[in-house]
């Protein structure tokens, strides 16, 4: 892999796209085999992997819009990366199809007999019904694809000319984009994850899903930058100062995730209403208890204590380790949200190879889509007026 430092274009792209595509296809094929073995388990593994990867794209979408809205300078060098993580959205829409087929196994509210015996589920049918569920998903994807195409379109146009109006357009799109983003991600989280236990509800659930996605997106951007750095790509553009700032965001969003998770848990624990506590109780029994503790310690406490130090944020090795760890924890978080309702779970957490193959399958395509977009053009928005400031960015 080689970067032309004049144009910021890759003169040699390396074999990453091919590798990711092959890994993705193999992962998908293996996962399809898993479907024949145990279709209900397959759907849960699939939803976990799907939720994991889509949350990264959603986090990147938010990060891109935040960059435009705040007029940030330092993050200009990583903007193109963030925008390229929006490329997988259409593929993710295709990967949603298995979930539609698996609704019966994933969502208890699709069972006619359950509704017939449960007046509350019957009450919810205007919202929780299969047709509307699919229509809503279509709306979410339409919104996300539209927003990401629009933002990326402006960004590409910026490479062509000096037009300063494009900055204003990106900013205004981000302003109203943020509003519909907030609504769509909230309801997506309600639909895809919260409704797995249709009797349970939590007003903060959308924010919880968002907070994990945002943290992971920043981790993924940091990881990608470090990966490129090893190959001497953008190593002089994305400096230790940028990693320091990314580290600050990682630290801040760890706290944000912990704050939201704690708010939800503490209020439910304190009020102790059975219809709400059941959700946590399920995750505190058998081997789920270990997973729950892993979330507290591994996703919050320990990363918090490590990333609080300035030295961590500026030590690229340690920062790299932390972002990989946090991405792993985010997958555990998705697993923790999805799997307890799986009927075959017997109240314990079980790991299966198809959990991994689903992540690799979707992830391979995700990263292939990302890299195909990212490597095709300049790796930074070369004509962005804020680029010089971003390149020479220094922390105080």
């Amino acid at each position: 892999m080689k970067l032309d430092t004049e144009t910021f274009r890759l003169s040699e792209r390396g074999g990453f796209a091919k590798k990711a595509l092959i890994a993705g296809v193999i992962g998908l094929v293996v996962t399809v085999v898993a479907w024949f073995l145990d279709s209900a388990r397959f759907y849960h593994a699939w939803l976990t992997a799907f939720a994991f990867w889509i949350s990264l794209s959603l986090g990147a979408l938010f990060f891109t819009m935040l960059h435009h809205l705040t007029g940030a300078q330092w993050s200009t060098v990583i903007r193109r990366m963030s925008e390229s993580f929006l490329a997988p959205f259409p593929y993710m829409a295709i990967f949603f199809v298995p979930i539609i087929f698996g609704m019966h196994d994933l969502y208890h509210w699709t069972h006619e007999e359950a509704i017939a015996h449960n007046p509350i589920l019957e009450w919810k049918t205007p919202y929780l019904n299969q047709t509307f569920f699919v229509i809503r998903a279509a709306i979410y994807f339409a919104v996300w694809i539209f927003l990401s195409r629009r933002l990326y379109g402006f960004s590409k146009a910026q490479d062509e000319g000096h037009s300063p109006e494009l900055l204003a357009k990106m900013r205004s799109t981000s302003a109203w984009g943020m509003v519909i983003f907030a609504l769509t991600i909230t309801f997506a989280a309600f639909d895809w994850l919260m409704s797995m236990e249709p009797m349970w509800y939590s007003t903060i659930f959308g924010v919880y899903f968002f907070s994990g996605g945002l943290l992971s997106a920043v981790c993924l951007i940091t990881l990608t930058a470090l990966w490129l750095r090893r190959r001497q790509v953008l190593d002089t553009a994305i400096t230790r100062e940028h990693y320091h700032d990314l580290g600050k965001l990682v630290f801040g969003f760890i706290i944000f995730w912990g704050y939201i998770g704690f708010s939800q848990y503490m209020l439910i624990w304190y009020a102790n209403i059975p219809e709400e506590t059941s959700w946590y109780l399920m995750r505190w029994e058998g081997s789920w208890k270990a997973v729950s503790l892993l979330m507290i310690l591994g996703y919050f406490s320990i990363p918090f204590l490590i990333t609080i130090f300035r030295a961590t944020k500026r030590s690229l090795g340690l920062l790299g380790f932390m972002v990989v760890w946090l991405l792993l924890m985010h997958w555990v978080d998705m697993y923790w949200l999805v799997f307890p309702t799986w009927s075959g779970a017997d109240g314990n957490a079980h790991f299966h190879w198809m959990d991994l193959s689903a992540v690799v399958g979707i992830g391979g395509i995700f990263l292939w889509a990302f890299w195909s977009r990212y490597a095709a053009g300049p790796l930074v928005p070369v004509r962005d007026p804020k680029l010089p400031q971003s390149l020479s960015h220094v922390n105080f």
Partner: protein
Amino acid sequence: MSASSKTETTPVVEEPLITGNQTFHTVTDVVSRIAERKTTVTWLALVGMSASLALVLLGSIGYLVWEGVGIWGLNVPVAWGWAIVNFVFWVGIGHAGTLISAILHLFRQRWRTSINRFAEAMTLFAVICALIFPAIHVGRIWVVYWMLPIPNQMEMWPQFRSPLLWDVFAVSVYFTVSLLFWYVGLIPDLATLRDRAKTKIRKLALGILSLGWRGGNRQWINYERAYLILAGLSTPLVLSVHSVVSTDFAVSMVPGWHTTIFPPYFVAGAIFSGFAMVMTLGIIVRKIFHLEDFITINHLEKMNKIMLLTGMMVGYAYACEFFVAWYSGNVYEAFTFVNRAFGPYAWAYWIMVTCNVLIPQIFWFRRFRRHVTIMFIATIFINIGMWFERFVIVMSLARDFLPSSWDYYSPTIWDILTFIGSFGLFFTLFLLFIRFVPVIAMAEVKAVLPQADPHHGEKH
């Protein structure tokens, strides 16, 4: 790496933060003079008025102590009335100052320098007003110190599981740290005033307060470090205080109170109301003391954007609560929300929605974001709306689980006088602040002037 011809860009022209071609000297002069000039008649008249209102507060509290909380409109389902509404209202207002000084500092938002001083002062005064309400609501105010965990021979301790006790800790820590933060920021400016002082007493007083500040290199290094650490410490406090306040409601099982989104929703609301109050006061101060070059329309526009954002967050929380109240299938939740919107307090609910959600939408338009009169009116509405938000939440009590105990809360004259009186205290403190302390952080404003850039004047 230098930007080459292929990556050539048109540079962004940012709106200047400080206008009017200020120099270091004019900054010192304009700001110091406000605190140095002779007391004006207008100021005396204003202090007279607000101090009289503060006396009304004092009188109301006196009568309350004498007679008991029965003088308020409290009744059995609504055992928490205006006192808790006012407490949350004032604490909320006290959020903007520290947000501006700490969080915006960490986010390198240099425009905060023009507004942080008086926003922080406002924070302190608002928290003082807030603390009064729970303290006087305890009934036997002479044993109010029982709220603190003081070792005693009765081995009597406060209930550590009660969010009301967490409030005591959260708010007092917040007040302490905000005060320290404000004072540390003040030191260089107090030294400036000391150096300009003409009389002996003034020199002595300011000399003591400025802690021997000489503006040396080493002092500045320590100062900047201390400021950054305090900013880091204050940031979680901005979030924690109002989160804890929200748990006063949310840990309970009362429908409409017990909902998981409360902590972040309350924080967003607090920042929203705090900014509205900073704007209201800022616009007046700017006008009276001709500080238009320091608190420019650019600053006001940025603050309006933050109000739009936080207003939308509050609107998101209203919508989310409403949806989940239906989605939950819980009849009590659903009833509470329908009752809020169409029940006996529907008027308050719709005032809240109009002021907090609809009115801030005007800030989508640049024209309104930069129109001083319009934004001033909008901030007043937001202040009102945010008071009503807390009122609406508290009044969920009026219709509890048992229809036979339903009641309607009507404030008595004492409720009203106490609340209005708290504004008297707030404005009195604020006026004293304006009179004696530089209202704008001079040292910090100088740092954002173009001349402060070490490369200023160099040709590229």
